[in-house]
């Protein structure tokens, strides 16, 4: 124990070297930039900088990759808040409340809330990295096909949460998302479904494309339709960007909750930051004392989403480093980087290579501070974007959407897909359906389908496999609670009101 503490301390000392500090600041800034540009994902940024890190000391190289990862996950919130375009899918839920805040002239506050929440989520997830790695790694090993199926069902209960107006329409949107998610190669039989011969659709509709189309492009269509006569002179722009003590106190429970959600989802390969941000948002809403704010600009909503997606970063490192199972796409690239340096994930990293690993962990912690500093400073600057007139903003957004969707895979077909989803998103708005629910269905569909079909295939069609482990039952209980708690809590509140009146 003492030895480990000694290693941790040594890690911090090494991490504070000038080279590493420079690496941290530069990579975090670069990460934030990559994150706020729609279509450029964190994984892409990490992959781009991988060759640069080959010549570096392994710890420094890893710190660079970690900085980009954390910066990008935060950076996505910038464009989500300012122009209703999640820079990365991980900030999709942030766009819901964040953009409303911008319309009220509170862009600066929204950005600083996002920055602060991201910092807390990331920093707290480092705690689990240091102290709970073996435990969480073991938990990751317990998630097999049936458990993933129940996880996706729980995820779908979030749809009720994000449907502020009509639950029925929210469910319809969710089912639409599920239907769209069936496009592509059948995972169990290898049959082409709804692909119309397009190789691009082999892995289904790309989530980032759909997201850019549904959230951003549709916004462009709607604004263009209004002919931009009455601009959002909605509210006078407020430059206040700090957080008052009271607000921080109010946000702490949300941030803590989102940290736990994000950290645990992070350790599950395939779950990822996107699901975490929606879950964090939903739980923030479920437990909020100011529910009426949701839908019209709630800082708790922004904090809930952003704390969760940054908590994923620390969590996803755990299975990557201990078991060699990447938590999600960015950590897969990181693992590739480790392997090239000759470092195999596993117990060796904590014994033979412990000094390097702990330097990396310390660097990861310090990166959060770099992100806080750069983010808060950047909030001042970026918030000014919300003051731009629509005639400048709209063409810029269109350019970002097109370039962003092309940049994912250098594939023009995906730009077309993005436009199609833009039209779908426009119709969604017109019919008061729910774009976030569609995205949720799109992401959770494959997870749920793979989980269910593989489970049934493994058990020869016996559905009891879905109820076979304690973890399954825990998830089932979570689902039931998730579905019924709004109803129960609603009745409870009504009774309280009746009592008081």
């Amino acid at each position, binding site marked *: 124990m003492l030895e480990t503490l000694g290693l941790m301390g040594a890690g911090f000392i090494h991490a504070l070297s000038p080279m590493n500090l420079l690496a941290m600041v530069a990579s975090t800034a670069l990460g934030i930039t990559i994150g706020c540009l729609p279509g450029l994902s964190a*994984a*892409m940024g*990490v*992959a781009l900088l*991988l*060759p640069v890190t*080959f010549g570096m000391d392994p710890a420094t190289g890893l710190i660079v990759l970690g900085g980009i990862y954390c910066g990008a996950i935060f950076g996505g919130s910038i464009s989500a808040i300012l122009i209703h375009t999640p820079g990365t899918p991980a900030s999709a839920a942030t766009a819901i409340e964040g953009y409303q805040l911008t319309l009220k002239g509170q862009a600066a506050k929204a950005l600083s809330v996002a920055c602060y929440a991201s910092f807390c989520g990331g920093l707290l997830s480092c705690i689990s990295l240091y102290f709970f790695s073996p435990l969480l790694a073991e938990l990751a*090993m*317990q998630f*097999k*096909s049936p458990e993933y199926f129940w996880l996706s069902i729980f995820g779908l209960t979030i749809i009720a949460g994000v449907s502020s107006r009509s639950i029925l329409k929210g469910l319809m949107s969710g089912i639409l998302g599920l239907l769209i998610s069936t496009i592509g190669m059948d*995972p*169990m*039989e*290898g049959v082409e479904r709804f692909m119309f011969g397009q*190789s*691009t659709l*082999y*892995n289904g509709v790309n989530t980032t494309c759909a997201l850019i189309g549904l959230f951003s492009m549709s916004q462009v269509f709607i604004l263009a339709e209004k002919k931009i006569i009455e601009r959002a002179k909605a509210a006078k722009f407020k430059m206040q960007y700090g957080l008052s003590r009271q607000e921080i106190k109010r946000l702490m429970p949300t941030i803590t909750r989102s940290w736990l959600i994000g950290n645990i989802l992070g350790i599950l*390969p395939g779950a990822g930051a996107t699901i975490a941000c929606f879950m964090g948002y939903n739980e923030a809403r479920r437990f909020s004392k100011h529910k009426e704010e949701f839908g019209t600009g709630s800082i708790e909503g922004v904090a809930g989403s952003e704390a969760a997606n940054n908590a994923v970063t620390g969590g996803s490192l755990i299975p990557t480093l201990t*078991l*060699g*199972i*990447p938590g999600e*796409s960015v950590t*897969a*690239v*990181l*693992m*590739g980087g480790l*392997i*090239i*340096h*000759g470092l*195999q994930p*596993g117990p060796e990293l904590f014994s033979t290579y412990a000094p390097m690993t702990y330097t990396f962990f310390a660097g990861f912690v310090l990166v959060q501070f770099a992100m806080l500093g750069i983010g808060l400073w950047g909030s001042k600057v970026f918030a000014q974007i919300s003051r731009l007139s629509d005639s400048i903003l709209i063409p810029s957004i269109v350019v970002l959407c097109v370039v962003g969707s092309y940049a994912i*895979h*250098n*594939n023009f077909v995906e730009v077309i897909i993005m436009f199609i989803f833009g039209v779908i998103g426009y119709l969604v708005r017109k019919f008061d359906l729910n774009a976030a629910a569609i995205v949720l269905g799109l992401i959770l569909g494959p997870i749920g389908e*793979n989980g269910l079909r*593989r489970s049934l*295939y*493994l058990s*020869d069609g016996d559905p009891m496999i879905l109820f076979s482990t304690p973890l399954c039952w825990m998830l089932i209980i979570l689902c039931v609670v998730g579905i019924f708690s709004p109803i129960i809590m609603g009745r409870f509140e009504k009774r309280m009101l009746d009592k008081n009146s």
Partner: protein
Amino acid sequence: MKKVLLSLAVAMALPLSAQAWTPQNDINVIVAYKAGSGTDTGARLLSSQAEKFIGKTLIINNLPGADGKIGWTRLVQAKPDGYTIGFINLPTFTTLAAQKGAPFKTAQIVPIANHLTETSVIVVRADSKIDSLKGLVDAAKANSKMRCSTNGVKASNHTAAQLFAKSAGIQYKAVPYGGTADQLLALRQGEVDFSCAKIADVAKLVTGDKPELRILGVFDKQRLKEFPNVPTLGEMGYYGEWYGSARALVAPAGMPADVVKYYVDTFKKVMSDPEVIKAHQTAGLNLEYKNDKELGELIKAQEKFARDVISTLY
């Protein structure tokens, strides 16, 4: 006067253009799999080492999707001007090219060199009761629903399992997962009973103090140097040929001969360099250089394999 100078310049340029070709710009390297995958990791390592010899940057262009189809279609469609090369996986490339209506054919690429070779092995969990190939076959004969995880329907590891099963006369359940990482995770979690993977994927899981997995057999004509106790499938009376995947460097067909020669010679130098060999060993990758002619023969052999064997396999 101008005319004289101009014609002098043209006269000078003609012999100069007959000099050996060298790249004047950065080179685009197409990798048909996503960043962080096995192929990508190997490609990045080689490209970064090769930059020292070529003097220009090799930019890795990840074009994932459709099991490689998207990237390879773009590769064969690229201009054969010497500034685009790419990595292919065998047998996947030849299998896909042999299918009806394939967007590319093996004739549309020109071989440069083979980079890595990964031999397939059969693995079970270290705590499994099965400790030999014969044990596995007996267990499968008793229970025809033994589960084997694969990296996808008819993907390379599924083919390996089929080759083994057909040669041993057993039935089993092939459960597809999204890729090698997922399939091995399923095995480690105990969701399936056995799996076929490449030696590099399992190397660290079968060695050390507490190995998680155990290798039962290897798809090769002779035993592996690193695992002399593991029998080949052929020894035990099952599939006797080599099977595995090869990662090779190719260029779009139509590239001028001197450009191809440049790459062939350069990569021969790169892969013979002791530092490069050491870097591959450190990363656990099995460097097996084959020159362009040998690679061409390998591609032809894989084509034959795809036509004759794989078509009857499933």
